[in-house]
C-alpha cells in the first residue's frame, strides 16, 4: 500500500530508491553468517571490541573522576561491570561459535533478548534501566563497526532515513553516493539541511515518526520540492515522478551549458558568484563551475570527529590544499565559528552547561578568549596566504573592540612569522561577518575598520527574529522578507558602498532563487552560495534586469512596513519561481 508522509523540503530534487534506516548513534546491524574457519577470528574481534569498550569507559572515568557527581562515576562503574559480565560477553561468543553469526549480529541478538526481559519488568524505573544495556552494547558495536568501511559502500543509491543527522554523519556519508535524506527532526536552516543542499541531494526533514513508518529497504520517493516522502508508491505515481526527475535532469543539463557564460544581467551588469565550501575536497567542484572565488570556507570541520584540536600544521595543510586547488581565485577563510549547533569535540570538558549556546561564548568571542585555540589557525592562514589570495573573515562580530583585538593578534602573528623568515601576504584583507543585528545597525563603523563585509543571513535572521533556526516548532517564523531583516541587510549594503569596500552575502538567502532579484535590486554585488546553487543563480541573473530591479526595489525599502510593500516583495520573489 502506498503511504505518503509530509515534512519540510529543505533540499530540492527527486530521489527514488531504497530506504536505509539509520539508528542514531547506533551502527546498522545486518544479519550475516561467517565461515567455519573464521570463527576464532570473529571471537577475537568481539573480545577486542569489548576490551576496547572497557578501555574507553575507563578513560572517561579517569578524566572525570575528580569533581564529578559520584552517581555519574557509579554509572560508568556499572557499565564497566557489565562489560565483564557473562550475559553480555560470553553469550554472544557462544552464538558466534555455535550458530556462526557475525559478532555484531550475535551481540545484537543477545541485546534484544536482554531488552525483552527489561520490557517485561513491571517496575517503571527498572524497566527504563535497559538504557544501561543499550549503552554498553552500543559502545561495543561502535568498536566492531569502526573500521568496517565496506559498510559505507552499500549506501550508494540509498535513501537515508534517520531521526536526525549530525554534521559528522553527513560528512561521513557525503562521498557514499547517498540518494536522499529523510529525517524526523530539523528545519530548513539546520546544519544538516545546509549540508544536504551542498551535496546537491534532495532532503525532507521534520517527517514525524519517519523511522517508525518507514521500514528498511522499502521503496521510497523523496520529493525535495514539495517536502513529501512516498512509501511503496503505486506505478502511476512512480512513473509521474520518474518524468519529473527526468525534467530535473534536463534542466541541470541546460544549466551546465552556462558554466562558461558570464554572470551578467540582461542590461550588462556583472555580479560576483562565490562558493561556500566545507571541506578541502569541495575545491574540485568550485573552479569547475567557474566561480569567481570562495566567499565562505567553513573551517569547523577540521575540529570535528576528533578528541583534540588541530595543530598549526593540520590547519596549514588544509588551507594550502584549498589555495592551490582553487588555482588563483580568492578564498575567504572564516575563522573558527564553533558553538551553537556546531559543537567542538575537543574542548567540551567544561562543567558548566550552556543554556543558550547561540548567544554564548562562540566564534570570535571564543577565539579572543582562548588564544591557544585560535593562534595556530591564524598563523596557518597567514602562512597559506603566501600560496595564493586569501581573505580572513571574522564571524559573529558584535563590537569594534573585537576588530581591534583581532587586528592586534594578526599583527603579532605577522611579526613572529617575519622573525622566523616565513612568507605571508602582508596585505591580507580582513573582513567581518555581519550576522548580529547590533553589528548590522553599526555597519558604517565596521565598514570603516574592515576590508570587506559579509552578511550571514542564517544567524542574522535568527537573532533579529529571536527564533531558533533548528527548532522546528518555531521555524515557520523564519522569514528573510521580514521588514526588519531587509532593513538590516540594506544598511550593510549601503555601508559597504559608502566606504568603498565590497559586501557579500554568504547566508542561505544569497543562493535562494526567490531572493536573488530582490538582493540585486537592493544593490548586493557578491553572492556566495553552496556550489550546487551557482549555476541556477547564474541562470537567474542572466534573465533579469539589474537597473529595472533597482528602480522597483529602492522605493520599497523606504516604506517597508506597509502591506502593499509586502505584496510587491512577494511579486519580486515570484519572478523566479
Amino acid at each position, binding site marked *: 500500500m502506498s503511504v505518503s508522509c509530509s515534512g519540510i523540503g529543505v533540499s530540492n530534487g527527486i530521489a527514488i530508491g531504497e530506504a536505509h534506516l539509520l539508528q542514531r548513534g547506533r551502527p546498522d546491524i545486518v544479519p550475516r553468517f561467517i565461515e567455519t574457519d573464521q570463527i576464532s577470528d570473529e571471537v577475537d574481534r568481539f573480545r577486542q571490541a569489548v576490551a576496547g569498550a572497557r578501555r574507553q569507559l575507563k578513560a572517561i572515568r579517569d578524566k572525570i573522576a575528580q569533581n564529578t557527581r559520584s*552517581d555519574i562515576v*557509579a*554509572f560508568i*562503574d*556499572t557499565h564497566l*561491570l*557489565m562489560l565483564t*559480565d*557473562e*550475559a*553480555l560477553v560470553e553469550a554472544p561468543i557462544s552464538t558466534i561459535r555455535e550458530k556462526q553469526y557475525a559478532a555484531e549480529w550475535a551481540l545484537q541478538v543477545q541485546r534484544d533478548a*536482554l531488552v525483552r*526481559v*527489561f520490557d*517485561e*519488568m*513491571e*517496575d517503571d*524505573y*527498572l524497566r527504563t*534501566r535497559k538504557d*544501561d*544495556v543499550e549503552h554498553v552494547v552500543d559502545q561495543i558495536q561502535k568498536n566492531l563497526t569502526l573500521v568496517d568501511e565496506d559498510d559505507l559502500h552499500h549506501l550508494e543509491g540509498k535513501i537515508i532515513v534517520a531521526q536526525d543527522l549530525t554534521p559528522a554523519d553527513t560528512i561521513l556519508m557525503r562521498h557514499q553516493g547517498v540518494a536522499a535524506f529523510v529525517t524526523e527532526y530539523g528545519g530548513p536552516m539546520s546544519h544538516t539541511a545546509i549540508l544536504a543542499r551542498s551535496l546537491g541531494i534532495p532532503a525532507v526533514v521534520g517527517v514525524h515518526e519517519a523511522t517508525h513508518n518507514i521500514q528498511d529497504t522499502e521503496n521510497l520517493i523523496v520529493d525535495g520540492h514539495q517536502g513529501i516522502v512516498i512509501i511503496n508508491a503505486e506505478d502511476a505515481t512512480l512513473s509521474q515522478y520518474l518524468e519529473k526527475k527526468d525534467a530535473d535532469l534536463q534542466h541541470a543539463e541546460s544549466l551546465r551549458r552556462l558554466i562558461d557564460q558570464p554572470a551578467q544581467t540582461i542590461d550588462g551588469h556583472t555580479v560576483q558568484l562565490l562558493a561556500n565550501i566545507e571541506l578541502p575536497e569541495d575545491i574540485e567542484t568550485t573552479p569547475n563551475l567557474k566561480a569567481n572565488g570562495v566567499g565562505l570556507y567553513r573551517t569547523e570541520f577540521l575540529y570535528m570527529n576528533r578528541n583534540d584540536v588541530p595543530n598549526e600544521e593540520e590547519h596549514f595543510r588544509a588551507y594550502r590544499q584549498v589555495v592551490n586547488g582553487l588555482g588563483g581565485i580568492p578564498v575567504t577563510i572564516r575563522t573558527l565559528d564553533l558553538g551553537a549547533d556546531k559543537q567542538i569535540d575537543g574542548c567540551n570538558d567544561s562543567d558548566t552547561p550552556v543554556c543558550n549556546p547561540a548567544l554564548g561564548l562562540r566564534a570570535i568571542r571564543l577565539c579572543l578568549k582562548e588564544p591557544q585555540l585560535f593562534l595556530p589557525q591564524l598563523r596557518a592562514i597567514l602562512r597559506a596566504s603566501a600560496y595564493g589570495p586569501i581573505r580572513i573573515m571574522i564571524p559573529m562580530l558584535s563590537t569594534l573592540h573585537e576588530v581591534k583585538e583581532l587586528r592586534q593578534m594578526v599583527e603579532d602573528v605577522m611579526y613572529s612569522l617575519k622573525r622566523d623568515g616565513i612568507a605571508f601576504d602582508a596585505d591580507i584583507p580582513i573582513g567581518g561577518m555581519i550576522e548580529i543585528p547590533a553589528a548590522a545597525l553599526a555597519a558604517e563603523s565596521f565598514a570603516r575598520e574592515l576590508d570587506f563585509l559579509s552578511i550571514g543571513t542564517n544567524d542574522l535572521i535568527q537573532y533579529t527574529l529571536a527564533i531558533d533556526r533548528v527548532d522546528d516548532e518555531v521555524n515557520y517564523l523564519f522569514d528573510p522578507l521580514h521588514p526588519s531583516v531587509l532593513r538590516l541587510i540594506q544598511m550593510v549594503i549601503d555601508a559597504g558602498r559608502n566606504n568603498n569596500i565590497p559586501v557579500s552575502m554568504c547566508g542561505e538567502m544569497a543562493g535562494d532563487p526567490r531572493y536573488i532579484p530582490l538582493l540585486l535590486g537592493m544593490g548586493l554585488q557578491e553572492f556566495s552560495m553552496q556550489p550546487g546553487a551557482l549555476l541556477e543563480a547564474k541562470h537567474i541573473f542572466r534573465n533579469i534586469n539589474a537597473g529595472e530591479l533597482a528602480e522597483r526595489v529602492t522605493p520599497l525599502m523606504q516604506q517597508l512596513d506597509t502591506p502593499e510593500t509586502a505584496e510587491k516583495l512577494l511579486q519580486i520573489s515570484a519572478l523566479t519561481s
Partner: protein
Amino acid sequence: MITKEIEIINKLGLHARAAAKLVTTAGQFSSDILLSNSSQEANGKSIMGVVMLAASQGTTLTLSANGADEQEAFETITALINDKFGEGE
C-alpha cells in the same frame, strides 16, 4: 550453606547501580552467591543476572551463600541490602 529470605527495601529497587554494588561486594568473597525469586535464579556475581531479577522495592529474594567465607559474605551482602545500597531511601 546459608539461605535466607531478604526484602529489597530501597526505593528504586535492585537497579543497575545497586546491582553493581551488590555484585562488586559478592565478588570479594570466594563463596558462591545465589539470588533467586519465585521464577528465576541469578549468580550474585553477575550484574546482568542480578538486574534481570527485576527486584523492585518490596520484592522478597532468597539469598544464599555457599563456601569457605559464606558467613561473612552473607552478612556483608545482607547489610548492604538493608543499608538501601547507601542510597538513603
